[in-house]
């Protein structure tokens, strides 16, 4: 199995570094910008790194770096937007760029430069305000010093500092003082102007600066990186995960093959030729030893036994479940099934590496620039200062581009060939050698009193563990808390509850998938609550309203229901379903409206979504994330599944992995619900989990049939060919 090659020592070292620098406030030191020196001169324009995030040119150009991986969620815009709030610059003049790997860019909460778990806004909001304010104060101080006045005589607006001590006032632009500002000490407690004036930029639907490059072909994704002297290469992964290369046959004429240990890289005159060569080369493999559990039917049998009985790690235990169940007037029990899923990023895995005896540079569409650095250190033996990771734009990440396999392969191939290598996975390799969203079974047993109140709640979850394969130290006594995400701490009134987890040890690689544990558990819980409501004879909305103990959850529930016209009779042949949850720091409710299309199929007509993520940075981006998350959730709920036969994935390309296309796109309506003063929540994953249960609940409302197994397969697969 492909695992993250992160040396624990290096990791701890960086963690300390991040804390020492106050989570990014390491200002005034030379900071590499995309591998260039902090101060460079081009065409008589001098650029100065005022701090690790702010680069100002003598021509008044302003570049703000984002430490987040831009995979569509807009972080290349929204992180700089927060910083620009306090920097006091004109947003239309701001350029943004991805930050290279570096201790200054480690997330102050997670101490990592990885983007995942909808974490960037949540962790960086306050630090970025401070970093922007600190940079502004340095610029103002530099100007004040040049005028021989105190800073309180200076005002600042739109990147211009004005000296009010003289009449008429005189001004200096940021560009004129940036070089001097970069040499000043860093204010550790800068004043936040927004604390008194309110936000100027934050909360506004400003235009994303990365979008113009995405409409004219100039945006550079990892797959577009071209380095002088580089060779094109393609990958041949082992057909069976965990295998090693026994022998490599002759490379096709004009190509070179590199044995990477667990895979083979093969070069070609271009990417297509490399694909052909990788396909045709003959490789003998040594499969992993022992009996492998890697066929779907056998995995299913094992899951059935794991949820039925046997030991499990306790994730949440409140009260006396047995006593509560004994007192129940009615007990309902349901088993839910979720499949393995592929990531299917629009951009296939790829990476470009240039390794020499003394240096290593990597360009990759990566969600984990810091992890790439550790991978490069481990493989090359070079120290961090000799390595530069250049994160590029990502054509989707979805959790897959957090992994290190494709980056490690490019580095090893460059080492072996002694030249820069641009390595691309074919779509077939990408689907066939994913680290899949785990399969899962959940058995939920609920004891109710005569009024439909929940006396006892028991949820036994059986699933493979992503933590076990990626971060085993976080698995304590068999408990994978990530597998339980969204299944514990529920906001419904319930007396006794027990949520436990039985780990499935199968030989199918698993990984984090957009909306992680919630992608599975919210389907289970919000389906089960709907079933409980039906058992109690209650309307699904009214039951939730009565049982929810959290006012924010109630607010989004009501907002989505109102927008969807819940309570009014749907059109003939239509029905609605609802789901609500809390995850990634945000509350989300969705109402899915479906229409009977044929006797056996439905069409999703409309999705009304309400989100409360606390402080909104860019409402237009938030709406886009909900729209996209809903599409992602809908594709998975309808058709998403990968099955395995002796380790071989059933899916190899988009022709047998159906995804929503234009004709299947429902009308999506997004309400932003604001709780004043609420902490900032995530958005990238928040839109995904509620779709599947709301859809299954709508199907129950339409037909009276309860669907507990994903995918629902309620509509024909979208056509993929013209």
């Amino acid at each position, binding site marked *: 199995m492909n695992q993250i090659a992160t040396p624990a020592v290096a990791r701890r070292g960086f963690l300390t570094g991040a804390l020492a620098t106050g989570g990014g406030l390491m200002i005034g030191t030379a900071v590499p910008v995309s591998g260039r020196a902090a101060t460079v001169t081009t065409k008589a324009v001098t650029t100065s790194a005022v701090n690790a995030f702010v680069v100002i040119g003598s021509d008044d150009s302003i570049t703000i770096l984002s430490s987040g991986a831009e995979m569509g969620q807009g972080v290349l815009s929204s992180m700089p937007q927060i910083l620009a709030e306090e920097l006091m610059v004109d947003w239309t003049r701001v350029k943004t760029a991805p930050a290279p790997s570096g201790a200054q860019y480690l997330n102050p909460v997670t101490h990592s430069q990885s983007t995942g778990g909808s974490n960037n806004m949540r962790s960086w909001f306050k630090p970025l305000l401070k970093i922007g304010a600190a940079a502004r104060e340095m610029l103002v101080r530099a100007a004040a010093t040049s005028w021989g006045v105190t800073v309180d005589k200076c005002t600042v607006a739109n990147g211009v500092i004005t000296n009010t001590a003289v009449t008429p006032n005189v001004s200096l632009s940021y560009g004129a003082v940036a070089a001097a500002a970069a040499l000043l000490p860093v204010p550790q407690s800068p004043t936040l102007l927004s604390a008194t004036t309110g936000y100027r930029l934050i909360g506004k639907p400003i235009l994303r600066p990365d979008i113009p490059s995405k*409409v*004219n072909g100039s945006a550079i994704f990892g797959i577009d990186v071209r380095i002088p002297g580089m060779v094109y290469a393609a990958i041949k992964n082992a057909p069976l995960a965990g295998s090693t290369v026994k022998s490599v046959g002759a490379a096709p004429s004009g190509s070179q093959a590199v044995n990477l240990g667990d895979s083979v890289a093969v070069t070609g005159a271009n990417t297509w030729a490399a*694909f052909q060569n990788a396909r045709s080369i003959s490789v003998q493999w040594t499969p992993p030893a022992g009996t492998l559990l890697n066929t779907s039917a056998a995995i299913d049998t094992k899951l059935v036994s794991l949820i039925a009985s046997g030991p499990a790690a306790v994730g949440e235990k409140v009260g006396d479940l047995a006593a509560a169940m004994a007192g129940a007037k009615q007990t309902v029990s349901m088993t839910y099934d979720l499949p393995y899923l592929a990531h299917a990023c629009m951009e296939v895995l790829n990476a470009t590496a240039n390794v020499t005896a003394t240096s290593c540079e990597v360009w990759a569409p990566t969600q984990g620039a810091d992890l790439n650095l550790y991978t490069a250190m481990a493989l090359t033996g070079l120290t961090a200062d000799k390595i530069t990771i250049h994160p590029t734009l990502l054509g989707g990440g979805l959790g897959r581009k957090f992994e290190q396999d494709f980056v490690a392969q490019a580095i090893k191939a460059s080492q072996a060939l002694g030249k820069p290598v641009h390595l691309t996975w074919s779509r077939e390799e990408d689907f066939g050698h994913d680290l899949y969203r785990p399969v899962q079974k959940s058995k939920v047993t609920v004891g109710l009193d005569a009024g439909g109140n929940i006396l006892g709640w028991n949820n036994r979850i059986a699933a493979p563990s992503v933590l076990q394969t990626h971060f085993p130290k976080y698995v304590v006594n068999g408990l994978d808390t990530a597998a339980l995400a969204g299944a514990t701490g529920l906001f419904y009134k319930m007396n006794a509850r027990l949520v436990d987890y039985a780990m499935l040890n199968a030989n199918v690689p698993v990984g984090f998938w957009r909306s992680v544990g919630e992608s599975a558990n919210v389907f289970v819980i919000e389906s089960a609550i709907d079933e409980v409501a039906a058992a109690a004879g209650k309307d699904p909305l009214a039951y939730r309203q009565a049982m929810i103990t959290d006012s924010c959850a109630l607010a989004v529930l009501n907002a989505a229901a109102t927008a969807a016209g819940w309570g009014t009779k749907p059109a003939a042949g239509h029905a609605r379903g609802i789901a609500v949850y809390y995850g990634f720091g945000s509350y989300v409710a969705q109402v899915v409206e479906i229409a009977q299309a044929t006797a056996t199929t439905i069409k999703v007509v409309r999705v009304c979504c309400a989100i409360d993520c606390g402080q909104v940075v860019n409402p237009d*981006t938030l709406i886009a994330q909900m729209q996209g*998350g809903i599409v992602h959730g809908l594709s998975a709920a309808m058709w998403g599944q990968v099955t395995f036969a002796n380790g071989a994935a059933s899916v190899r390309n988009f022709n047998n992995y159906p995804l929503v296309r234009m004709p299947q796109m429902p009308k*999506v309506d997004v309400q932003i619900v604001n709780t004043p003063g609420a902490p900032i929540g995530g958005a990238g994953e928040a839109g995904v989990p509620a779709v599947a249960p709301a859809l299954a609940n709508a199907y129950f409302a339409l037909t009276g049939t309860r669907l507990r197994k994903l995918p629902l397969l309620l509509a024909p697969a979208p056509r993929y060919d013209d």
Partner: protein
Amino acid sequence: MATSTLTLNVNGTTRTVTVDPNTPLLWVLRDTLGLTGTKYGCGIEACGACTVLVDGGAEKSCDMSVTEAVGRKITTIEGLSPTSTHPVQVAWIAKQVPQCGYCQSGMILAVSELLKSNPKPTDAQIDSAINNLCVCGTYQRVREAIHFIAGN
């Protein structure tokens, strides 16, 4: 591998390439000519990321050999407008359509062709004409941007 020297007309310019004549146009554009705006998604005509205009019609370049492209006018995303101000590009920015952006070169070219033949398409006509895959799920904004251009 036998190579041939072929002459192509790409974005109004004559380009000479020496490649295996079976190479798909996609990879000649990307790897030989450096026009990386055209994207690889599937290689089997199943996603539309590689869409280019061939004599004005939207075609998937992943399954068209470079030989088939000889003598025809190829337009890639880089050649749609010298100033990036084609109405579709303008609308895509106004409506903030792209998320990751990876599918959008193909999406934009496919939409530009649709609007040439049908300047005011209905939702049903959009659905039947545009089948490009967007894993980010920008479809609603694609529709809105098309209606914005059409003045609907």
